């Protein structure tokens, strides 16, 4: 019973997004016979994992009231450097991957330092980092893709465990870790405090600078992991990888119900948000909708999701009422 209640509590806020995901799934199933097949669903998981993993970190940042525009560039720079270590320098795959992840985390820490010590607004700091990291990626590769990655590295993006793509498993692990961090540890709980009322957090003796820096480091780390997965899947690391990625990631978090003004949000929501975007892209591809129209539709979905969220919040604390009614209905 307790587990049921926990699931109820954690799904509670995401019910809107979850309903949206299920509805989209039903629509796509009805619209095309190719949607509801194991291969296609696994494909969606593989494609969504990139955005989902980075969105897990972004959720922390947005809950603290911040934003990270540099995830796409960090993805690119860390994957190019990792590829370089393996291909040009011939380093061990494990070492290269660990160093690549570390580079992502360090870029995040740098964001955190700029934001907390100078202090720069997160938008500006990460906008600058977006340019710098992307530029360095071009400088390093001279604009040419790095090919010929080791097979063991490609497994990160292309591997399968049974029918399940390896990136989907990574995604699941990242979300378990993030759920734990956000709900059970000081880092997570204080993130809510910082985003909800920073002044109060400071007056309560919370080292807000430290915790903010940690969440940017986490985002950088996860963005780098997304970079590895992408490079593994494409069998190439490129300096143009992840162009515009930051907006997809932010969209996933926002569709998942996390408030851009901080203090409010759930990690599961971001996973659902990323899956919604994956399902829409996949379904529209199957339906042969042009990529131009796909942009329009994804834009509308973001507007719809946030509108629903805002309206729900306005119709006040009533969401509790409707939810308990919903679950009461389920039980009887």
């Amino acid at each position, binding site marked *: 019973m307790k587990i049921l209640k926990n699931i109820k509590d954690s799904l509670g806020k995401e019910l809107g997004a979850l309903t949206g995901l299920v509805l989209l799934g039903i629509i796509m199933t009805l619209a095309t016979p190719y949607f509801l097949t194991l291969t296609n669903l696994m494909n969606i998981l593989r494609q969504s994992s990139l955005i989902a993993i980075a969105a897990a970190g972004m959720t922390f940042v947005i809950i603290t009231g911040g934003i990270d525009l540099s995830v796409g560039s960090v993805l690119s720079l860390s994957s190019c450097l990792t590829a370089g270590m393996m291909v040009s320098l011939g380093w061990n795959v494990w070492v290269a991957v660990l160093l690549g992840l570390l580079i992502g985390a360090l870029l995040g820490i740098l964001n955190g330092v700029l934001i907390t010590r100078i202090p720069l607004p997160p938008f500006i700091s990460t906008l600058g980092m977006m340019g710098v990291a992307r530029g360095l990626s071009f400088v390093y590769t001279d604009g040419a893709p790095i090919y010929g990655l080791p097979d063991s590295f490609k497994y990160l993006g292309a591997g399968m465990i049974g029918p399940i793509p390896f990136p989907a498993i990574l995604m699941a692990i990242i979300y378990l870790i993030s759920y734990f961090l956000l709900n*059970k*540890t*000081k*880092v997570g*709980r*204080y993130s*809510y*405090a910082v985003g*909800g*009322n920073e*002044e*109060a*957090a*400071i*007056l*309560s*003796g*919370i080292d807000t600078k430290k915790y903010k820096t940690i969440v940017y480091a986490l985002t950088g780390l996860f963005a780098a992991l997304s970079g590895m997965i992408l490079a593994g899947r494409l069998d190439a690391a490129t300096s143009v990888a992840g162009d515009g990625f930051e907006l997809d990631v932010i969209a996933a978090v926002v569709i998942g119900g996390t408030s851009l003004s901080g*203090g*409010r949000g759930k990690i599961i929501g971001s996973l659902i948000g990323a899956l919604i975007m994956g399902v829409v892209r996949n379904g529209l591809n199957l339906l042969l909708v042009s990529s131009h129209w796909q942009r329009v539709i994804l834009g509308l979905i973001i507007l719809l999701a946030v509108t629903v969220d805002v309206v729900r919040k306005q119709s006040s*604390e009533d969401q509790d009422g409707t939810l308990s009614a919903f679950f009461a209905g389920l039980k009887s």
Partner: protein
Amino acid sequence: MSKLLEMHGISKSFYGTQALKDVDIKIEPGEIQAVCGENGAGKSTLMNIMTGILQADSGKIVFEGQELTDLNPRTAQEKGISIVHQELSLCPEVSVAENIFMGRVPEKKRGMVNFKQMRQEAEKVLDRLNLEIDVKKPVGKLGISEQQMVEIAKALSINAKILILDEPTSSLTDTESQILFENLMRLKEEGIAIFFISHRLKEIFQVCDSYTVLRDGEHVGNGKIEDVDPDDIVRMMVGRELDQAYPDKGTEVGKNILKVENISRKNEFKNVSFEVNEKEIVGLFGLIGAGRSETMRTVFGINQPESGKIELLDEDITANNTRKNIDQGLIYITEDRKEQGLFLDMDLNANVVAADLEQVSENSLVKKKKVNKIGEKFVEIMNTKYASLDQPVRSLSGGNQQKVLLAKWLAVEPRVLILDEPTRGIDVGAKFEIHSTLRELSNNGHGVMFISSELPEILGLSDRILVMHQGELVGELDAEGATEEDIMMYASGRKNDFKN
């Protein structure tokens, strides 16, 4: 009995303004001490120094016989000095238990929160205050008074020896205040020392053992509460006899300018009627939630009344929006000048002309020369102290900011001014100047109406007083001969002249 805390010769200045000058204060365990003073007297600064939020320029803090140096919020907490700020400092989305233990959550292993222990301890603290609140609930779902109690619980949970309450009752109802006071008595029994900051003298005389009065950053008196009466405290706070604190009343009443008839808005106010005449100042009093601001916002056209009629100089303006009202000479100066009335980062000039760019424009382009001229003229009329007209308004004192706001509206040459809490948060000197300016405006034929929560101001400045209670106008009094008790009879709903 030995002193728990002693502060000697505390001084502090900000940007050249002396906020505290050589102030002494001390407290014993189990003592409840009132800290009195007008806004800007330095109470908050003193408390911020005591809790390590600010550092004194000079002076000594001795706590349990030990001198404290380099006090910061964290070390102050560790010593047991705790403050409940006037603005609630809670995180609305976070649970009660987590708010209480914010910054000090119990841990299982490194970094992992021990929710079970935290909830149990939170319940223990709430028990001390005789409160039954679900500690898992997000704080934002609690009522204001419950949130206040959570704040106090939070302050207590650090094993507080000194508790500072900054205007704890400002958002509480009478009953809620009484519950708070019972809790304070309980804490007093436990030997906790309490600094109680309040503008409500009645409360001070109800709960406090002693007092300290500050005026303009200086210590002007302290002692036992039973040795003084409320008038003594007020005299110390104001520094002059009460009857001198306000400009002379108006002598004659001119013709009617504004006429409001039976206006209503659902859930805000109903059947409100009043008039404002030339050469008189009308004061509107009511407790929080009486519907004063809502009524005035409707008169000004921010909202439209659902029924009733508003006339300005015999012209029907009921359906007007704010722009039209401003053009016709009806203006409303909001309560929250920082949020709603001024552009803090723009300079003096720009603020003064902001309400009417037409008069400083030629062919739709703003002319800098005209702006300067008008800015200069009105800032001078208002006797505002400033360094340069290019100075951002943010750098002015509260009183001078208020004067800039007034100047801004005078620049549109209004017939009727409605002011919402015109002197809130302003020091005594500036208060007097603003009162004089309003009287002058009234004498020059403008209609002036103001909302205030301060009874002395209502009595001192008004010629005629209106009182609202729960959305209804319940009383109209001549200020001459009226007393605070008279007004409170109406404001608390015990008396209603308009009910048949």
